[in-house]
Each structure stands twice: as C-alpha cells, then as structure tokens.
C-alpha cells in the first residue's frame, strides 16, 4: 500500500472515531459542538504521558480517552441543566475554552505546538477505529439505544417510565467524550505533532456535519458520513478549499432534501405519510 493510501485510511479511521464521539450524545438528543475540545484533551494528555512520563503509547492513549471522559463527566452535571440549543452552545463554549487553555499552557508547548516523540503505526489507528466501531455497534444491540432514543424524543415520558434521564444524558456525553479523547490521542501519536489551533471550532463543525450527513438513526450512519467526507474529496483530487466548499454545498442541499441523513431505519420512504397521519390526529 502506498503512503498516500495509508494516509487516507488513517484519516478515515480518525474521522470515524470522532464521528462516533459526536453520534453517541446525539443519539440521546445532545448536539455537541465542542467535540474538538475533548479530542484536544485526549491528545495533549496522552502526548504528555508518553513525552514526559515515558508511558507506552497504548496506555497513554487509553488514559487520554479516560481524561477526556472524566472531564466530560465533571462538567456534564452542570451542563445538562441546559437543554437543546443552550446545551449545544455550552458545548461550543467549552470547546473554545479548552482550545484556548492549551494555547496558553506552556508545559505542552503553548502556541508553538507540541511535538510528540513516540510514533504509532497506521495499523494501530485502524485497529482502534475498528474497536470503537465494534463497541458502538455492540452498544446499539443493547437496551441503552432504545433508552437514548426515548430520552432524545420525549424526556418527560422517559422519566415517567422510570428512566433516569439525567444519568443517561451524562453517560452519553461522557462516553462520547472518551471516544473523542482516544481519537485525539491517536492523532497526536500518528502525526507526532499537535497544536491547539487544530482543535478549533471548525473541527467540531466538520465532525457534526458529516455525522448528520450519514444520519443518526442508524449506527452505521456516522461511518458512512466519515467515509464520504474523507474519500469523496480525495477522489475529486481537488484543492482542500474546493473540497470543503463542495462538501458544504453537499450538506446544504442534502439537509434540504433529506434532513434525516443517508441511513435511516427504513422509515424515510413513508415519512411524509406518517407525518400527515400524526398531524391529523394530534390536533
């Protein structure tokens, strides 16, 4: 395999991991616009552990994910007091704060960036991505998926049915952040260099965009979204600005024509019909 192809596959693996970090909270009704912040925490924590503490990369990457998850858990309780648009904006603000903190943290290079000494092979990144996809898929076979859907669609009824809406929300945000943290840690050790500016709001934005492109109703949606985001522009072989512009145009048109994303639960065909029914009976 050529270096170019390897690069693409690693990119796909990293984008896929980030996508599932966004997908999990979204399946419980949280639009996380600060996923890059959690990736930054995983990246910097893991890089610091291999650079300064001499940890082996596998342990450091796991610890990076755990650090991101712990931070998410700590902020989840106050943050989940807000809902909907307020929660999205809170995650957005948190992402900005995290990125700004790393920009000022001289112990990890500050604005100059942070070189990472230990290198991991592409195969490690791909295996980790496969593991993440498998775990999320396994999770999708448990009752938790149905519970998340209940919390997302009707938190009041979910509560009356005995679900702990708060705990489920915290769990979704925490696990999503952990996955994103692992993604960031892998990024740091594959590219051997990180800078705070990379983990900015645009990284969060792109991730949310391709997850919604793939669709959040199916567990495979984020994978498909990440694949389209990574591979289609490569196939076009255009400049990166053209890629992003075309991708953005694609998103806009797609959201207008098929807002539920590419993959659904097979409901979309009759979506309008269902809407007509519920509309006529609820009123």
């Amino acid at each position, binding site marked *: 395999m050529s270096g170019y192809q390897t690069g693409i596959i690693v990119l796909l693996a990293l984008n896929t991991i980030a996508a599932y970090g966004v997908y999990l909270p*979204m399946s419980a009704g949280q*639009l996380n616009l600060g996923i890059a912040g959690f990736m930054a925490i995983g990246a910097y924590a893991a890089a610091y552990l291999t650079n300064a503490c001499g940890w082996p990369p596998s342990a450091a990457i796991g610890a990076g994910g755990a650090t991101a998850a712990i931070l998410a858990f700590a902020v989840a309780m*106050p*943050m989940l*007091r*807000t809902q*909907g*648009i*307020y929660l*999205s*904006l*809170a995650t*957005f*603000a*948190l992402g*900005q*704060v995290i*990125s*700004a*903190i790393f*920009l*000022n943290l001289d112990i990890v290079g500050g*604005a100059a960036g942070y070189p990472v000494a230990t290198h991991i092979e592409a195969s490690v990144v791909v295996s980790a991505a496969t593991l993440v996809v498998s775990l999320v898929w396994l999770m999708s076979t448990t009752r938790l998926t149905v519970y998340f859907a209940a919390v997302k669609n009707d938190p009041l009824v979910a509560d009356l049915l005995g679900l702990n809406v708060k705990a489920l929300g915290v769990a979704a945000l925490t696990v999503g952040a952990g996955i994103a943290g692992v993604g960031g840690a892998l990024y740091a050790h594959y590219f051997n260099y990180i800078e705070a500016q990379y983990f900015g*709001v*645009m990284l969060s*934005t*792109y991730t*949310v*965009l391709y997850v*919604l492109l793939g669709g959040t109703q199916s567990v495979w949606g984020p994978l498909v979204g990440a694949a389209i985001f990574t591979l289609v522009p490569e196939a076009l072989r255009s*400049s990166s*600005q*053209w890629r*992003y*512009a075309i*991708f*953005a*145009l694609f*998103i*806009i*048109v797609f*959201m*207008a*024509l098929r*807002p*539920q994303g590419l993959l659904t639960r097979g409901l979309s065909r009759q979506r309008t019909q269902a*809407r007509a029914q519920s509309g006529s009976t609820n009123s």
Partner: protein
Amino acid sequence: MISQQIVNGFMLGGVYVMIAVAFTLAIGVLNFLNFSIPGIFMIAGMVSWAALRGGQHWPIAFGIALAASAAVGVAVYLLTYRPSSDSDPEVPLVSSLGFLVLLENLIILWLGSDQQSFPALIVDFNWRFGSIIIGGAQLLSLVLSLAFVIALSLSLRFTNLGRQVRAIAENRRTATILGVNVGSVVSRLFVLSALFTGIGGILFAISYLQVSSSMGESIGFKGISAMIIGGMGNIWGAVAGGLLIGLVEILSTQFLGADFVNISVYGLLLALLIAKPEGLFGPVAAREKL
C-alpha cells in the same frame, strides 16, 4: 488608565453589537440559531475590500457588498430555513453551519486566506477628553451601530412589517390565523437581518482597517456569546451583551494577556449558560424550534 480601557472596551463592543442583534433577531422571531450570520459578516467585509481594490467608489463597493449579503440571506432562507420547517431541530442549525463553511472556503478560493488591510476611508483622527483618547473611526462605527439598532427597534415597533414580525415571534399559528403571510414576512426578515449583518461587517472593516476570510469566525462567535449574555431574543440585551463582551476582552487583554481573551469570553459564556441560561436580561420570545 482604567477609564481608557473601559472606553476601549465599549468601542470594541460596538463591533459585536450588530452581529449579536442579527443573531438575536433570528432566535427571537424564528427560533433559529443561524450560523450563517458570521459568514455574511465576513462576505460583506471581504466583498467591499475586493470592490475597493477593483477601483470602485466606496458607495458602490458597499452597495455590492450589501447586495451580496442580501443574496446570501435569501439563499439561507430558501435552502436552510424553509425546507426544515418540520424536520429535526438540529437540521437548520447544521445546514446554516454548512453555509458558514461554504462561504469561508469560497472566499479563500477567490481572495485567498491572508489578512488584508482595508483602505482608510475616513481621515484618521482622535478625540481627547482629558486623559481619555477615543478613535474617531471606532466612535463613528459605534454610533452608527447604535443608530441602526434604534432604527431596527423602532421599525419593529411601528412599521407594518415590524408588527407582523412581532406577531410571528409571539405565536406563529395565531399570526397565520390573523392573516399574516408568514412566508413573505420571514423571507423579508432574512434579507433585513443579512443587510444588518453586512453593515456590521462593513463598519468593522472601516474602523479596524483589516479584513480576512476568518473574520466572521472570530467576531461572529463572540457575537453569539453577546447574544446569549443579553438573553436570546432580546435586542437591547444583545447590545448590552456586545458592549460587555468588548469590555471583558479589553480588560482580560490588559490584565491577563491577549491569549487569555478566549478563555475569559467563552468561560463567561459557559458560566452564564449553566447558571442563568435565560441571559442577564431575560428572553423576549418563547421557543418552538431549535
């Protein structure tokens, strides 16, 4: 010294006022967090720069820039807001983020990603009040921003369109029953809000003499913070929020260093969202859609 910083803070805050008001209008009336607004802000600045560079007179250059802003506003209405009227709440938000990405990358393709210096259109002059110095261009920009906000506020109160807009903000269904043509009013509101944002972008370019493809992100996202601090949907709250953000930014630059600005501004936003999500001045309109 500190009074000089406070004045500087308000001058900077004037930049955020227009964009915060544009955001709050979209949230208050349409319950739509319109992420294309920072893109429109940037388009207005960059297009007027390109037109001036191309040798146009400034009224023509600004006219072109505002026409471009309005065109984007119409496109956002047609492609983002209208199709999403009955889909998931995150869809219009995400689609408007798509517009931001699209606009930024198109501008980079056309004009490059470098920061450009904007020609000085008004003579550089400063006013002195005792020990306090006020930049003329900044003051003009702040005064014009406030004048536009007052005009907007008055027209919402007294014009026919304004009354219809407020009826929609109050209750869309009732407005429809009362014979308000919601589609037509909303499309005009999108144009109006895009023009408002565009004027904000031009005023920024005039007073700070620099434009870039990323100016929307840096200014616009702080405009969101200003809008939230003022209470979503509250126009004068957005003005106060904008001035407050400017003040926080200048003071944290002064006392903590320029790199701490984002920590202060977004930290304040995060704390406020958690402690008092309705904003310092409370919301005006109820929400029906994200």
